[in-house]
């Protein structure tokens, strides 16, 4: 069965010291982040999807179109795939102006989408004033924005991004991330985004695929995957879950904003946004504590009923507790001693106290 809104990617390749063996079904919308350390195979996977690398065994289907099927000997070369690709280095053509770089792909497309998509992309990425410049006269951040616009101008069926921020310094990253978040809200095509940065995962991912040694350890909606106990990420000192919420109410007197998520609400420091604006709220596992009864006298505002869905040993005498709050998964890092004293078990109804949150956009 072909589902019009999914990506099916199955690849096997063996370079001796590196093997890639994945079989993924990914949603046809939103940003899917391929996360892993260097050598995990995330870039190789992306290159296989683009056709820049050819896995001997592979089946790739995007929106019902087969781009590779090794059993039938089918392999569409990269230049025939309706994709957009953003490289780690912007990779602009040094002999062409920004304008000519942006038009390079457009001129070569058969069903020319016109310049509507290009104009949208130029506006979205704020590069209108750079059109006549040569790439060498752009900053790293500007270059990368032009590269993203160049890919989007083609009105691709899928956008592939290979660590687009990795070559930029902190300041430039902060300059581009808002553009990517906006992209996220305005784009109706699936994006596959490779990164090793947890910050980018938290800020951009709808779906998270964790890769290690050429295999997919986990794959699924962001907070589900982040909170999986069988994945090293949950043990990390920076372990966190990201909830997608919307602004529900402003409590101006207290300088607070209440946001709603699937199955509950949270109080946050005042957010300057209109009601029903979507937000990403990040909750670090180390900021979550657990109580068996609803605390009656506490300074912590966010106390939510939850059900324990998993417990694992963490590092340095810690326990990693996975809980379900409404429809959202949550991770808590508590001491192993506390876990024992409270007698925490899977299925128990408890209260989670969230000491701190951060808003990502």
């Amino acid at each position: 069965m072909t589902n019009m809104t999914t990506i099916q990617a199955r690849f096997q390749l063996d370079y001796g010291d590196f093997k890639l063996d994945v079989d993924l079904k990914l949603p046809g919308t939103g940003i899917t982040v391929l996360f892993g350390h260097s050598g995990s195979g995330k870039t190789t996977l992306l290159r296989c999807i683009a056709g820049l690398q050819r896995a001997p065994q592979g089946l790739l289907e995007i929106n019902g179109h087969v781009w590779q099927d090794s059993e039938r000997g089918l392999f569409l070369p990269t230049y025939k795939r309706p994709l957009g690709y953003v490289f780690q280095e912007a990779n602009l053509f040094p002999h062409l102006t920004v304008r000519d770089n942006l038009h390079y792909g457009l001129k070569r497309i058969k069903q020319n989408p016109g310049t509507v998509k290009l104009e949208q992309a130029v506006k979205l990425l704020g590069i209108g004033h750079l059109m006549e410049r040569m790439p060498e006269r752009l900053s790293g951040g500007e270059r990368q924005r032009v590269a993203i616009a160049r890919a989007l101008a083609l009105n691709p069926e899928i956008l592939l991004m290979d660590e687009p921020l990795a070559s930029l310094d902190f300041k430039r990253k902060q300059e581009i991330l808002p553009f990517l978040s906006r992209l996220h809200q305005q784009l109706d095509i699936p994006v596959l985004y490779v990164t090793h940065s947890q910050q980018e995962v938290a800020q951009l991912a709808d779906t998270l695929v964790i890769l290690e040694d050429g295999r997919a350890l986990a794959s699924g909606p962001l907070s589900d995957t982040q909170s999986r106990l069988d994945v090293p990420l949950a043990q990390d000192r920076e372990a966190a879950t990201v909830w997608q919420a919307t602004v529900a109410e402003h409590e101006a007197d207290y300088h607070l904003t209440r946001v709603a998520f699937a199955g509950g609400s949270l109080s946050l420091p005042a957010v300057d946004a209109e009601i029903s604006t979507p937000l990403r709220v990040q909750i670090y596992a180390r900021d979550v504590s657990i109580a068996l009864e609803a605390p009656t006298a506490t300074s912590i505002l966010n106390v939510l009923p939850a059900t324990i869905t998993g417990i694992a040993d963490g590092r340095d005498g810690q326990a990693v507790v996975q809980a379900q709050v409404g429809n959202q998964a949550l991770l808590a890092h508590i001491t192993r001693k506390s876990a024992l004293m409270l007698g925490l078990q899977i299925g128990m109804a408890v209260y989670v106290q969230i000491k701190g949150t951060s808003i990502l956009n």
Partner: protein
Amino acid sequence: MLTTADLDTLLLTCKIAGIATALMLLIGTPLAWWLTRTSSSLKGIINTLVALPLVLPPSVLGFYLLVMMGPAGPVGKLTVWLGLGTLPFTFAGLVVASVLYSLPFVVQPLQASFAGISEQALEAAATLRASPLDTFFSVVMPLAKPGFLSAAILGFAHTVGEFGVVLMVGGNIPDKTRVVSVQIYNHVEALEYSEAHWLAGCLLLFSFSVLLVLYTVLKTQPVAHPLK
């Protein structure tokens, strides 16, 4: 002063060098691209064959070409069968010999400049719907422009300066194969030193200008010698 005969040899030399350079660019471009990109086991041997004229005495190359293109040689038999006659001591024969003789001076700067083009630029073009051939014309050629200029200048200049191969393959026929370097030899043989001075001076000035352009304007390394 330059005599009419001297001017004729200068004109003929430029004609041969011009045609040979055009041919070398046509053959050398795909050859250099293939040599830069391939991982074929043939790469070593092809590189060697192309570079051979750099170390071979011109008279040796000329001798083999003469034998091969002569009526009894394989190339000669082919050209006779094609109704073209034999190539030695003709204008066409001299062009063929020049192409083989100067080819490394075209292929090597091209190879060096192709090698400097990142794989990433080619991949970017592919993700922007450019076929490999399209990529070659729209990305590789513009980026390798200095390489093409060096290749053309060096190929032309080296062809102008050849002597040994010309004597072997072309002989000394006025308006057909008598080039500048041979004319200088003729003058010296006839003890016409002042005529020899004029022509030799022309070549010296020409060579100096060519190298000056390469070093100052193009800022390349014109001596593309693999063994130095």
